[in-house]
């Protein structure tokens, strides 16, 4: 694995990811509206917000599944607004989607081999898969087909697929949904470890989980960035409680 990049301190070097006034509309619905967002090298950021706030749409714009209606996306200073999904992935952006996007008819090993072969060749493919199998303790399920695994296991394998492709920016959309308490703790550990070699943006609703992994949180509301602050401040902000879970939810 690569050494952890130092967070950006030099204002002259561009951030890893930057969006400028990014918008995505579906007819009259403004799912993402004029979002200006920045993420440094090696940073870990959590995105929170109620359902329909635009978080997943924002991720889909970043991975180019959706073409934005307006605005710009820069990756390491390069304008990537009009490139295709596979080109974004080749630049080093990996995503774990909300509903596990895996190869259901293939075994865990075949899933990982495919992921590794995206950017690697020859023996490197096998070595990377072995490394990820050990790192994520997948030995027991290596020969199992994905459609025979539980939802939590499929989430975990999708994470493994993303890790295997060695991205420099990892987008995780609700990575702990459907997981047991032990699996959630395991995921938090994994995210902290992944952050040693990559920047991450994590969409989550589990406040305990957010506290355990993130120092900075961005709050989405009605397609816009509502607030960007330290995790502790955001999680105790009454306004966030009001838009997110109803008045008073965060005050305790």
């Amino acid at each position, binding site marked *: 694995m690569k050494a952890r990049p130092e967070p950006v301190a030099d204002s002259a070097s561009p951030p890893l990811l930057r969006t400028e006034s990014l918008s995505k509309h579906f007819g009259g619905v403004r799912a993402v509206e004029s979002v200006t967002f920045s993420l440094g090298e090696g940073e870990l950021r959590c995105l929170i917000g109620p359902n329909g706030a635009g978080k997943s749409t924002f991720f889909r714009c970043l*991975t180019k*599944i959706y073409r934005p209606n307006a605005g710009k996306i820069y990756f390491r200073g390069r304008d990537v607004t009009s490139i*295709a*999904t*596979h*080109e974004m*992935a*080749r630049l080093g952006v*990996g*995503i774990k*989607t909300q509903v596990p*996007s*895996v*190869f*259901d*008819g*293939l*075994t865990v090993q*075949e899933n990982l*081999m*495919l*992921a590794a*072969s*995206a*950017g690697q060749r020859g023996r490197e493919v096998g070595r990377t898969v072995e490394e990820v199998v050990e790192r994520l303790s997948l030995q027991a399920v290596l*020969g*199992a*087909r994905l459609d*025979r695994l539980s939802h939590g296991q499929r989430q975990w394998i999708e994470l493994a*697929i993303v890790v295997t*492709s060695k991205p420099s920016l990892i987008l995780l959309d609700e990575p702990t949904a459907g997981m047991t308490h032990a699996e959630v703790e395991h995921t938090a550990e994994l995210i902290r470890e992944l952050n040693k070699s990559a920047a991450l943006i994590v969409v989550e609703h589990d406040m305990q989980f957010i506290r355990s992994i993130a120092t900075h949180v961005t709050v989405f509301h009605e397609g816009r960035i509502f607030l960007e602050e330290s995790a502790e401040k955001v999680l105790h902000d009454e306004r966030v409680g009001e838009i997110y879970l109803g008045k008073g939810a965060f005050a305790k």
Partner: protein
Amino acid sequence: MSRSLSFPGQMLALVAVSTVLLLALPLVLEIDRILQLTLVFAFSILALSLAFVWGYAGIFSFGQAAFFGIGGYAYAATAINLGDSTPAIVAGVLVPTLFAALFGYFVFYARLSKIFVAVITLVMTLILYKFMGQTAKPDYMIGNARLGGYNGIPAVPPINVPGQPHLFAGPDEMFYIAGFSLLAVYLLLRWSLRTRFGKILVGMRENEKRMELLGFDTRLYKLLAFVVAAAVAGFGGVVFTNWNAFIDPHVFQLAFSAQPIIWVMIGGLGTLAGPILGTFILSTLSLELGVQKALDINLLLGAIFTFFVLLVPQGIIPTIRNYLEGRRTAGGDSSEGATGARG
């Protein structure tokens, strides 16, 4: 633990058994059976092209019969003009390949959905049928080869020893050529499915979006799979035209275009051996019943197809395989495998 042979071992065993069978059959079968089997071999190559592009790359192409026909016409026109089959075989593969590359580029780079790919390949086939049917006038010539409209091109020169047109293949030699061609195409496709390219195709079939999110340009890989399948179908058309010494527009008809789909579905989608088996069973049945004229063959094929879709939707080979795997698992061997590149 599995005690099955390794992949090279399996392929060597297949080559050995097939060679013995192919060499022995002309010694024991009557000439009409030899001709019948030669035709089934040509159809099996067509079925393999669809098995590859649909069963592994996930592209439902209604156009395989069109590439089969283009290959046949290209062979016929080149052989008539040059009098030698070697460049004609090359043309029979190259012309459908180039046609598929051009057509496929617009289809896949326009990101048409799967259903539209099926529709547009069907439309392409039907346009070719109409067009070739209208070429009866003497103006429609490719060099010395008259296209002949619905009457087609007769007296197509058979395959000959390269550079020696007077040494051409008779029915027995054509049987060997068709049989070994089928074996070669099968081995080539089995091998290709074990390469990185083959695994990418299986990945696309399983989850195209995930493949894009991993960095694979799925448009390019779909185009490549489409082109490979067109080359295989074109080669099948060359063998078919040799069997018949004749090619006409019926190869572009809807009824003929639908047949490979039935062969592949009944034999088993996602395998290569299944579609060959499906072709053997259904083509032989069609040929036998066609001779007897006791029953409308299309009615019977329709009934068989309905039976399989309702009761054996996976097809013959996957159903047998699942049954055997179920027995093995019940017997204590819990090893599981993927549906990837098995034959």
